[in-house]
C-alpha cells in the first residue's frame, strides 16, 4: 500500500487487488460546500452584508411573508432579495412590483436546493455596495436545503398551518438548523387540527434555541415580530 498526498493535503491511500486498484477517498460530499459556505460568510462579513436564508415547503408563504417584512424594514435597512426557483421568475417580479426593492431570480436548473457556490453566483448579480441585508428565498423543499449551507448568517423557515404540527418530527434536520420558525397562515387555524403548542414543543425538541413566531402573512399580523428579530440580528452582527 502506498500513500499519496493530494493537492488538498488529504491522504489518499492506494491499495492493489487483482483486477482493480482501489483508491481510498473517505470524503463526505458536503465537505467542499461547507468550505465554500465559510468562505462566502467571511467575504460577506467584510462587506457588511447580512445574508438570511429563508426556507419552507412549496407554498408555505415565503414570498408573501417577504413582501410584508420588506414593507416594515425598507426604511430602516438597505436590502435586496434573491429568489431561487427551479424555473420561473414569478416571485422576483412579485417582490419588485410590491415593494420596489431590487430582486433577482436565480434559476437552479432543476436542482432542488441551493449550495454556497450557486448562492455566490447569484450574489454576483446583486449590487452589494452599501447593502445591509440580502434575503434568499430558497427552493421550496424541507429536505436538502437543510443539508447545504448557503453561507448565510442565519436560517429561518416557514411552516404553514395546513402542513400540520408534526413536521418538526418528520424533517428533524431542517428544524435543527433554523434560528427562527415562523408559523404562517394562522388565519386558517379554525379549519385544521393544527396544535400551535404541540408544534412549539416539537420544534424545541429539535432545537431548544429556536424562536417560534406565529403570523398571518396575508394580513401582516405578527410579521412585525419577525421583522424586529431580523432587524436586531442584522444590527447586532454589524457591531460584532
Amino acid at each position, binding site marked *: 500500500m502506498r500513500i*499519496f498526498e*493530494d*493537492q*488538498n493535503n488529504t491522504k*489518499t491511500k*492506494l491499495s*492493489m*487487488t*487483482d*483486477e*482493480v*486498484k*482501489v*483508491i*481510498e*477517498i*473517505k*470524503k*463526505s*460530499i*458536503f465537505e*467542499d*460546500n461547507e468550505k465554500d459556505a465559510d468562505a462566502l460568510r467571511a467575504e460577506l462579513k467584510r462587506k457588511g452584508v447580512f445574508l438570511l436564508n429563508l426556507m419552507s415547503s412549496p407554498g408555505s408563504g415565503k414570498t408573501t411573508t417577504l413582501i410584508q417584512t420588506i414593507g416594515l424594514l425598507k426604511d430602516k435597512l438597505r436590502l435586496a432579495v434573491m429568489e431561487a426557483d427551479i424555473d420561473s421568475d414569478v416571485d422576483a417580479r412579485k417582490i419588485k412590483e410590491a415593494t420596489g426593492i431590487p430582486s433577482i431570480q436565480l434559476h437552479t436548473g*432543476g*436542482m*432542488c*436546493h441551493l449550495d454556497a457556490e450557486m448562492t455566490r453566483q447569484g450574489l454576483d448579480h446583486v449590487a452589494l455596495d452599501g447593502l445591509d441585508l440580502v434575503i434568499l428565498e430558497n427552493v421550496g423543499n424541507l*429536505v*436538502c436545503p437543510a*443539508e447545504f449551507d448557503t453561507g448565510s448568517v442565519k436560517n429561518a423557515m416557514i411552516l404553514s398551518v395546513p402542513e400540520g404540527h408534526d413536521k418538526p*418530527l418528520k424533517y*428533524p*434536520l431542517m428544524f435543527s438548523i433554523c434560528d427562527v420558525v415562523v408559523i404562517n397562515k394562522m388565519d386558517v387555524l379554525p379549519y385544521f387540527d393544527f396544535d400551535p403548542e404541540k408544534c412549539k414543543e416539537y420544534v424545541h*425538541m429539535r432545537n431548544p434555541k429556536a424562536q417560534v413566531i406565529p403570523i398571518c402573512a396575508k394580513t401582516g399580523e405578527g410579521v412585525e415580530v419577525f421583522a424586529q428579530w431580523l432587524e436586531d440580528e442584522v444590527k447586532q452582527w454589524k457591531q460584532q
Partner: protein
Amino acid sequence: MHELGIVFYIIKDVKQAALDNAVSKVSGVVMNIGEVSTIVPDYLQDCWRWAADKEDLLKGAELKINTIPAVTYCEDCHSEYGTVEHGKICPYCGSEHTYLLRGNEVEIKEIEVPNQ
C-alpha cells in the same frame, strides 16, 4: 431531483481524486450511504448511470452502495438502538432525549481503477 444533484457532487469529487492520483479511467465508485440520509439508492443509481456515461473518465463505471445502518443513542439510559425500527423514542426506557449516532452519511468511500 435531489439524487441528481448529489450525483454531480460525487462526479466533481471523483474527478478531483482522479486528477490527484493521475488516473484516467475509473471503473467503480464505492459510496457509504446512511440509512436515514434522505437518499434513495435506486434513484441515485439511475442518475449515476445517466450522468456518469457522459464523462470519459466514468463511462460504464459502476456505483456501489454500502448502506450504513442508522443508530440512535439514548442520553438517559445510555443504550444504542436501531433508528429505523424505533425512531426518536428509546425502546428501552421511553425517553425522547436521543440523538442520531450514525446513519446520515453521504460519503465517497473509495474509487476503483482498472489494473493495466
